[in-house]
């Protein structure tokens, strides 16, 4: 099972590198993509994924798959690369899909963050975790879901790739903050009400809380850095810094 996952991740890396080679694409973005895939591989297939019933290992895997890997994958701007690598007609098709109604709804930061954190709550508070943890297929399915919703939420907040309906920085920062709140409350909840049949619940909850804080603050810093460097902010600053006409 993990062989299939590794094969998919390796082909994703290979395709990205092949597309980037001809385009004078930023090596940093390529490195970010490969690192993101490696982290995802670690979370999906490593010893952490095999440690059933150990909440600390499970949540460490969650941090890697659902938070660290998505940030790295988003920073690699794969959709921008895809649009530049494809022939024009196919690139238009991709951008039509990106502009479609469902993509607009899913790509809204509030929807994406709600899906991500909602899924996390459902998994840990409803007892679903106990049910799926013992079937390897179910566990992998849940982990892939965690990777995809984490990626969607991070992509919607950071909007590195072109998004036709991008919200302003304040809305995206609020969505991120709301997600962080849901995440922090869940970590405390797990500490106070450990699920049945798991070990290391307290340590796992602390790890989720502290690790989540680090990643969330990092994403917030990236978001605001993007705003600081955005064209509108730079233009405003130049206007304001120019001495006022007398």
């Amino acid at each position, binding site marked *: 099972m993990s062989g299939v996952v590794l094969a998919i991740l390796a082909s994703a890396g290979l395709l990205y590198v092949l597309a980037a080679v001809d385009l004078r694409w930023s090596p940093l973005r390529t490195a970010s993509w490969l690192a993101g895939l490696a982290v995802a591989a670690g979370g999906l297939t490593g010893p952490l994924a095999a440690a059933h019933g150990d909440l600390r290992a499970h949540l460490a895997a969650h941090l890697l798959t659902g938070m660290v890997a998505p940030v790295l994958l988003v920073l690699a701007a794969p959709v921008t690369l895809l649009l530049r690598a494809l022939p024009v007609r196919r690139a238009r098709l991709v951008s039509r899909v990106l502009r479609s109604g469902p993509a607009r709804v899913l790509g809204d930061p509030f929807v994406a963050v709600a899906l991500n954190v909602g899924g996390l709550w459902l998994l840990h508070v409803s007892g679903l975790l106990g049910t799926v943890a013992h079937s390897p297929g179910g566990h992998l399915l849940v982990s892939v879901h965690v990777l995809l919703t984490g990626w969607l939420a991070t992509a919607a907040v950071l909007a590195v790739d072109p998004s036709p309906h991008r919200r302003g920085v304040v809305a995206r*920062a609020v969505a*991120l*903050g*709301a997600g*962080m*709140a849901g*995440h*922090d*409350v*869940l*970590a*405390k*909840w797990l*500490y*106070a009400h450990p699920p049945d049949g798991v070990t290391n619940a307290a340590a796992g909850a*602390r790890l989720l*809380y502290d690790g989540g*804080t680090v990643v*969330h*603050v990092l994403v*917030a*810093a990236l978001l*605001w*850095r993007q*705003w*600081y460097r955005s064209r*509108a*902010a730079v233009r*405003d*600053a130049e*206007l*304001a*810094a120019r001495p*006022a006409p007398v």
Partner: protein
Amino acid sequence: MTAPGPARPDRRLLLSGLLFGVGAMGAVDEIVFHQLLHWHHFYDRAGGDAALVSDGLLHAVTWSVTVAGLALLADVRRRGGFAPRTWWGAALTGAGAFQTFDGVVDHKVLRVHQVRYGVDLLGYDVAWIGAGVVLLAVGLALLARSRTTTTTTSADR
């Protein structure tokens, strides 16, 4: 974005200070009272689920506004609009308002947690809320003074 009027950088400077002050006060609470003194705990059995929600929420809010406040500060400095007295006034106002809110609403009204456990609380509460009120007063006084100085300098121009 509307046309940048003369009031805009000043408003951004104030907002930056306020956000940073609120966030910094939250960080002081976490570092001093959770990590160093161990008076507060990651989870208080006494507080129940309401405390858990309010703690998680405050943690997210304080970190988010700290980052936002610093980004706005960087932008204000780039615009050449940084006025230390106004910024520190706003920061202390934010910090004092947060501390007072925490002391009055969280500790006394909602009773989600207390300053310290197993002691007579009165002195601690007076110190906690008093510190908030003092910070708030100093911040507002600085803001008032910065306002008068800005008015005179702009009148000189």
